[in-house]
């Protein structure tokens, strides 16, 4: 009975091409990411650093969430936990309501390859490979043929405005261009979630805003969920929600309506820290 009902709702929503179970999963929860009680302690020469002290976080499908906080507040640590790149000491991370601690290496690799697109503060492009080859890499890991991957990668690079730099190596590109390659690479396998750890940290204001604009477009055009860390209040323009992390704890959550937005950037974002 319940099955039938879900099926009906699915049809009513005009959501075709998805199976009942997938549909059911989605209907059960609109949360694409759910983190519960995350803690992480690093030990450095006998000294304990509490990077996360119990962080709870839920992110809805298609939401753009900015995680803000001063340097050392635990943004990267949280980012790594959510992305399945590192394990929390305690607490759980659910993606599509699956506890990622329960995934084996094959399942985890699928998650990293298809479900999540990562953008790193330091770009992390492969230095010897061209822009095109860098973007192709996750597609090849997913089993796509060289020819198909090449076409698709060129397509994505065109979208981020790099159609003239396909064959350039990272060191032949500016910082902003490198980060755009990284954005393109994050999009390689049409991820549902983009995790961006200070994507603008190494860029000047103007190039940074360009990257934020691209992320905002992904959200609005493709319904991608974006989780982005930053310590710069000028980079909050596209956010639906801003979460302030201080010393490993969430100290403030602000909805878009509560933010003063002017000319595409957020003025007076500094008071977030008050």
């Amino acid at each position, binding site marked *: 009975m319940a099955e039938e009902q879900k099926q009906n709702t699915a049809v009513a929503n005009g959501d075709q091409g998805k199976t009942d179970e997938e549909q059911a999963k989605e209907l059960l929860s609109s949360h694409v990411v759910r983190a519960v009680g995350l803690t992480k302690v690093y030990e450095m020469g006998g000294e304990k650093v509490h990077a996360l002290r119990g962080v709870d976080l839920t992110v809805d499908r298609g939401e753009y969430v900015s995680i803000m906080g001063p340097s050392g507040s635990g943004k990267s640590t949280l980012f790594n936990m959510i992305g399945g*790149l590192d394990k929390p000491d305690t607490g759980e991370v659910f993606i599509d309501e699956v506890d990622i601690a329960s995934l084996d290496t094959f399942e985890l690799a699928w998650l*990293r390859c298809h479900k999540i697109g990562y953008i790193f503060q330091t770009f992390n492009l492969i230095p010897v490979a061209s822009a095109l080859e860098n973007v192709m890499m996750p597609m090849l890991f997913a089993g796509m043929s060289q020819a198909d991957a090449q076409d698709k990668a060129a397509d994505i690079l065109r979208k981020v405005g790099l159609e003239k730099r396909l064959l350039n190596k990272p060191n032949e590109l500016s910082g902003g261009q490198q980060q755009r390659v990284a954005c393109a690479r994050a999009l390689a*396998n049409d991820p549902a979630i983009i995790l961006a750890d200070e994507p603008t940290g190494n860029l000047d204001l103007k190039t940074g805003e360009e990257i934020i604009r691209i992320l905002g477009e992904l959200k609005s055009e493709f319904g991608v969920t974006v989780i982005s860390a930053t310590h710069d209040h000028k980079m909050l323009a596209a956010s639906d929600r801003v979460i302030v992390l201080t010393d490993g704890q969430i100290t403030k959550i602000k909805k878009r309506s509560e933010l003063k937005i002017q000319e595409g950037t957020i003025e007076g974002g500094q008071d977030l820290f008050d």
Partner: protein
Amino acid sequence: MATQRQNHTSLVDRSGQVRRQRQLTGKQVLLMAWKNITVRMGRSMLVTSGIVLALAFLTYIMSSDAILRSVLENAPPSVKETLSESGKFAVLEDADAQIQTRWMVGLALLVSFVGILNAMLLSVTERYAEIGTMKCLGALDSLIVRLFLLESFFQGIAGTTVGILIGLLLAFTESLFGFGWTVAEGVPLMGLVPWNGIFSIIGIAMLAGVALTVAGALYPGWRAAKMKPVEAMRAQV
């Protein structure tokens, strides 16, 4: 919006199973490995030249000794005498020099061993960050190990082949200078060359070169593949 969201595959498939990354086929990995080698040609040449040097040294020492020994054993007695008088076999007749040759072969082996392992270790560890990035992008641990296995295998074959050729060339040139094309009236040098021995030296050198190269890449590659992605990305060399 709803239509576009359909692109996003759920973590769970239609039967309720969590989706799994598939192993790539041998051909796909081969292509990737080949690309990796060609794309870092300059760098691989540097590492490969280390292998070439080590193998050239090893092959030269072993085959030069084998040729000299064979000429001494197989030359007609009369020829042997004249050669002996001219001091050509001093190395083989003098007990001290004999021991010295043994040491040289041992040393050559050691140089190859340490040189190749070191070169491969360096070339893999400087790629730790890259390995970490690859893992973040969905590469299976086994894919990383397979890539390193293939890359080092190609590199080992190429470096070892060139090294052996150079070593043989040196050994033959040396004997030619020592004895000339004809060792004595009617006794050509090439007739005294221990071809079977030379072939087994080639075989041994090939095996040692490739095995050392692969072993030198595989161990650090395997360790890096097992690391957590964040750790590998952090790793500084």
